[in-house]
């Protein structure tokens, strides 16, 4: 009787990103093969990653790719330091080997959109991710979204609690939120008690008659008032 097999993931590029990605995928129980073209680097990776298959070759070379079992891969993740190599690896995986899902690491943030247009399913820019974090950390305002309610002055506002002064306080201890109607606090994908102390990453959904900009830029930034 056939045993259900773990999904097979092919990682292309054995730099730091490829190494840690492969390590975590293995720990999560996936079948993983890591492609690295530098022989010495591949040998070093092999001694660290153990049961993982390290394949020495060029992730853009068709004959080599065909020898990796790429056609049965569920995902190909191209994470070398060169955007053009990642693009071509993903395109070959998709068009020639019919891999259902391709993921590329992108160094130039402008290439995220380009890669989508050129058929890569997921393009991840570390630069973008870090920029976003710096933006929200420096602004101390978290990620705020507003949904205006038709026919009223009011809106639904969703605030993602940033690392900063809000953490550890209940919503009724925060000056701006104390006057508003808290509809929901979500943590880890589930609603929690609105009276729980806030943690970074919590999403607070508020019914407010004030513009979201006021909620963020005045009271929310200020230190919380005592309960």
């Amino acid at each position: 009787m056939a045993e259900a097999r773990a999904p097979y993931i092919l990682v292309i590029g054995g730099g730091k990103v490829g190494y840690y990605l492969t390590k975590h995928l293995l720990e999560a129980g996936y079948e993983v093969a890591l492609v690295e073209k530098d022989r010495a680097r591949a040998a070093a990776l092999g001694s660290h990653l153990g049961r993982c298959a390290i394949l020495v070759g060029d992730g853009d070379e068709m004959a080599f790719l065909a020898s990796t079992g790429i056609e049965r891969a569920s995902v190909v993740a191209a994470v070398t330091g060169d955007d053009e190599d990642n693009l071509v690896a993903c395109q070959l995986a998709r068009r020639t080997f019919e891999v259902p899902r391709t993921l590329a690491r992108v160094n130039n943030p402008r290439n995220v959109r380009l890669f989508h247009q050129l058929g890569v399913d997921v393009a991840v820019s570390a630069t973008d991710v870090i920029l976003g974090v710096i933006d929200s950390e420096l602004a101390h305002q978290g990620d705020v979204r507003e949904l205006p309610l038709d026919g009223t002055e009011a809106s639904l506002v969703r605030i993602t609690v940033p690392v900063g002064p809000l953490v550890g306080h209940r919503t009724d201890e925060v000056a701006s939120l104390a006057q508003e109607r808290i509809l929901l606090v979500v943590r880890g994908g589930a609603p929690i008690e609105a009276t729980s102390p806030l943690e970074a990453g919590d999403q607070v959904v508020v019914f407010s008659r004030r513009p979201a900009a006021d909620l963020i830029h005045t009271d929310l930034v200020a230190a919380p008032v005592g309960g």
Partner: protein
Amino acid sequence: MAADGHDVTVIDSLESAFDRLGQDFPGTMVVGSGVDQDVLERAGIDRADCFLSVTNGDNRNIMAAQIAREIFHVGKVMTRIYDPIRERVYRELGLYTYCPTLVGAGIARTYFDEGAGAADAARGAVTGAAPEPLGAPLPPVAVGAEGRGDG
């Protein structure tokens, strides 16, 4: 091409590569990566009628050509791919490609089998130009060319 009166811009990641174009090159030179959309815009790709990518890196050529075609909608886009298998894949995907490896192998086979006259004729056929004697100057390059592969 520039000598023929075409408005030619050359992109290369190495400034020193432009030395080989000579003092009297009438075109424009832009330093930067041919797969960087900012650089391509700086080179005026939005006004280009033709685009040719001939760096030493197949993937860089492929990516640059796709940017020219899909993002900037350049009318005629051509790219060089050394790897014959990759060249076939991207030709089937609609890029206008050529593979020096296959072209060279074809000329060699013709020369060895049939002699210089037949090989010269074959060169004319595969390059689309009149047969040239050996030692002729290198053909000029157009927008998106990077002379070296180490950018």
